[in-house]
């Protein structure tokens, strides 16, 4: 364990790939093999916030939705959650959650709020609020 001199980061690394890639393949079965989320051009950021669309009629008989869709709906029912939290909450890879959320968005079941675009940092007032909030923690 100590034979390594500092600064020799050349690591083969590839022997781990199969182990880690293995489980990544199967979860896409729940999306029917789809890897693209929802309407064209949709890309849910990790911190995009997902809320139930409470104006949507509650039709749980929509049998095109799978159990994983319904789990997502239940998670969002409790509170508005980020895509990352939904992935952690369902134990599904983020890529899969994105596809499922796309389905829910197309059916009008959820509202997705995208984060502030990169070029526009939130205004100074919000940053000050964040700083004060952190101090008060």
């Amino acid at each position: 364990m100590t034979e390594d001199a500092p600064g020799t980061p050349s690591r083969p690394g590839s022997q781990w790939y199969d182990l880690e890639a293995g489980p990544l393949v199967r979860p896409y079965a729940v999306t029917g093999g789809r890897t693209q989320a929802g309407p064209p051009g949709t890309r849910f950021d990790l911190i995009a916030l997902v809320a139930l669309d409470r104006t949507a009629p509650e039709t749980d008989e929509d049998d095109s939705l799978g159990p994983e869709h319904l789990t997502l709906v239940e998670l969002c029912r409790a509170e508005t959650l980020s895509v990352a939290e939904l992935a952690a909450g369902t134990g599904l890879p983020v890529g899969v959650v994105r596809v499922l959320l796309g389905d829910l968005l197309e059916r009008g079941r959820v509202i997705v709020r995208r984060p502030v675009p990169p070029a526009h940092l939130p205004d100074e007032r919000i940053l000050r609020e964040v700083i004060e909030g952190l101090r008060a923690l």
Partner: protein
Amino acid sequence: MVSENSDATGGDQTALALKILVAGGFGVGKTTLVGAVSEIRPLRTEELLSEAGRPVDDTDGVGQKITTTVAMDFGRITIRSGLSLYLFGTPGQDRFWFLWDELSTGALGAVVLADTRRLEDCFPAVDYFEHRRIPFVVAVNCFPDARTYGAPDVSHALDLDPGTPVVLCDARDRDSGKEVLIRLVEYAGRVHTARLLESVS
């Protein structure tokens, strides 16, 4: 798995989420920092290092750390209802860099955690954020058995752009972690204002 105390009310249409990255070398304390300041247990995917993984992940001088973050772990701080801060620990190993671009998109800024015993481990992160012009602070995690260096020494050793803050911290300590985040948000605000002025002049 269904999470935590949910004091925030759902369905807030004006909700705003901000993203901060926590980067740095393997075993430097990223998950520890995220956990120290987060209100929820950090949600994470970790892979236990096996014998096969150990030579790859050089743990010299990192004491008894036996797991490493291979995907991402994150925590949340609710500033108020409708305003949350998400902290994402970036994958500490080079082979997971493909996740960085996604993580850094739209980020408010980044914390680069450094260990003075292995300062070179944070070079890639410093480089990454400098090139993408993402505001960052360097937080030196003061391990008990490491020699202490002053912030200017670290700044010099990392060849940081003037103005990039260097903070000494204890990643296990909530107040210390809060201070790091406050310095980052202040700095990100300054950088942003300067860019705005630049763009109008």
